[in-house]
């Protein structure tokens, strides 16, 4: 079994690579056709079986240590194909990249074709998509002045537009934090007051000016505990850590429960109960 996986995952070149790619596509289409031709009654069972087997691989690989396998030398055979599984998952996920681009083309293409409201924004998508794709390809594969010009265009589009716009959107948060903090942080109760005091201490503890404010206090002894960086550190490593841990445990158990339900096909809801 393992040698079969090694054979199938061995690097290929030339006509063998082409054959493997077309073979994989053919097998994939065949499986989809088989699924489509299955009666609806059995489709859910098939999906549940595949889901269970896929999850079972990871469960067996992690839960059963080598010493419990009746093999000589003791080893977990599922662990040996771990890199292959990682590569296969990468390939499947890479399809999602194309799916994203395909969806964008469909949506914006429809908007431009129908001249819907704001269709010029969709046209701008196509212009910018092909501009940066063209510049990126030409700068790497063209020669001479074409490559030089493409490099400049790519730099303007990438560093000038794309990265700057991304950073600008993130920078908006600074402004919104100011307005949100100013509007929402009112000391309406004792708990709110405690929270405000803790927030103020941590805000000062994390920045250089906070250390300057209480720098006059001794660095050892009882009074050193009143230094803002010490108080901030205590808040982060004691109450904050306890609360984060508690929330993390709750989220982890919730995640485990949902993972179990999906793995065993016990999940309910419109999406999971629908006819396939």
């Amino acid at each position, binding site marked *: 079994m393992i040698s079969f996986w090694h054979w199938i995952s061995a690097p290929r070149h030339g006509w063998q690579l082409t054959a493997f790619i077309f073979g994989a596509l053919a097998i994939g289409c065949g499986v989809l056709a088989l699924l489509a031709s299955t009666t609806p009654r059995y489709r859910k069972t098939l999906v549940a079986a595949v889901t269970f087997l896929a999850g079972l691989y990871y469960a067996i690989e992690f839960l059963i240590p080598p010493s419990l396998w009746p093999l000589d030398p003791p080893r977990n055979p599922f662990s040996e194909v771990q890199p292959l599984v990682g590569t296969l998952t990468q390939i499947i996920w890479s399809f999602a990249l194309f799916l994203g681009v395909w969806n964008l083309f469909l949506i914006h293409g429809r908007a431009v074709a129908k001249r819907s409201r704001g269709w010029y924004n969709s046209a701008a998508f196509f212009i910018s998509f092909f501009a940066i794709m063209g510049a990126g390809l030409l700068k790497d594969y063209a020669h001479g002045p074409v490559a030089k010009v493409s490099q400049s265009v790519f730099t303007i589009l990438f560093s000038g537009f794309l990265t700057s716009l991304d950073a600008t959107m993130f920078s908006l948060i600074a402004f919104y934090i100011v307005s949100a903090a100013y509007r929402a942080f*009112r000391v309406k109760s004792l708990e709110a007051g405690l929270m405000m005091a803790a927030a103020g201490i941590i805000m000062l503890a994390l920045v250089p000016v906070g250390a300057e404010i209480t720098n006059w206090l001794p660095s050892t002894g009882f009074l050193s505990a009143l230094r803002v960086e010490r108080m901030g550190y205590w808040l982060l490593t004691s109450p904050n850590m306890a609360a984060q841990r508690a929330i993390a445990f709750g989220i982890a158990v919730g995640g485990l429960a949902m993972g179990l339900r999906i793995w065993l096909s016990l999940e309910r809801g419109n999406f999971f109960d629908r006819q396939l």
Partner: protein
Amino acid sequence: MNILEKLQTIDRRILYLLIAAVIAIPLLQRPSRHPRIVFSEVKNAYTTLSKVPKNKIVIISCVWGPGTRAENEPQTKAIIKHLLMEDTRFVMLSWDQLGSQLTYEDAVEIGKQLGKRYGKDWVHLGYNPGPMYAIIRGLGKSFTGVFKVDRFGKKLKDIPATKNVRDYRDIGAVVEITPSGTVSSWIAYFNQPYNVPLVFCPTAVMSAEAYPYLDSGQLDGMLNGVIGAAQYETLIGMENERTYAAAAAWALSCAHIFIIVLIVLGNLGYALSRRSAPQRGGGRTG
């Protein structure tokens, strides 16, 4: 409108102008003075990376992109500089399409400054689409089984820096530089199973979540945001250089003071207006 109401209802456009000025001035002035205090988690990160054996590599995993460049890039540059100064080989991989180019350019810039060569001292594996958990789980077993070529398509076994890297035994540490909660994948699938040290470099807002892992020993150090980067620069001997990290640390200081002043003003107005007016219904809390 009396002064009490005005204190609570300052036009947000004025607030935005003021915060822009408060942040911009230190960034433009670029003070060279680095933070005086270095947090213990930053010191631990420094010690962890200093102790990496020379026959092992460090993986620098970059999840950041242009959006969080202001916080994560100084961390990346400080770590790269430290590793190159220590002659520790490292491999960079990026989980963000745009971040891949940015991280590569950062490593090229610092490599040139220190006379280090791509391929011999460091390698960049380019953009990886994921999923993280499967790749991390696989690379512990076989590094070249998961990563076959670098960003230029050259086989890793033909590159001097990576030709002898087999699996987790040849990886001395992992540095995860991220604006999101991806460190749990490294902890679960790499650090815990293989006991490889892990240094976490999050944006400041994510750092609060990391303290349980620091306490349990699953993280061996942390650089909290750009402040952590500025402190790390102090440790690697850059305390008198005019760096972006130092300027950002002072910009943050001014911004935090400004926000505290605003909150105090708002609460002052609120407290005084409560005394002078009948109580209205409070807001909904969920």
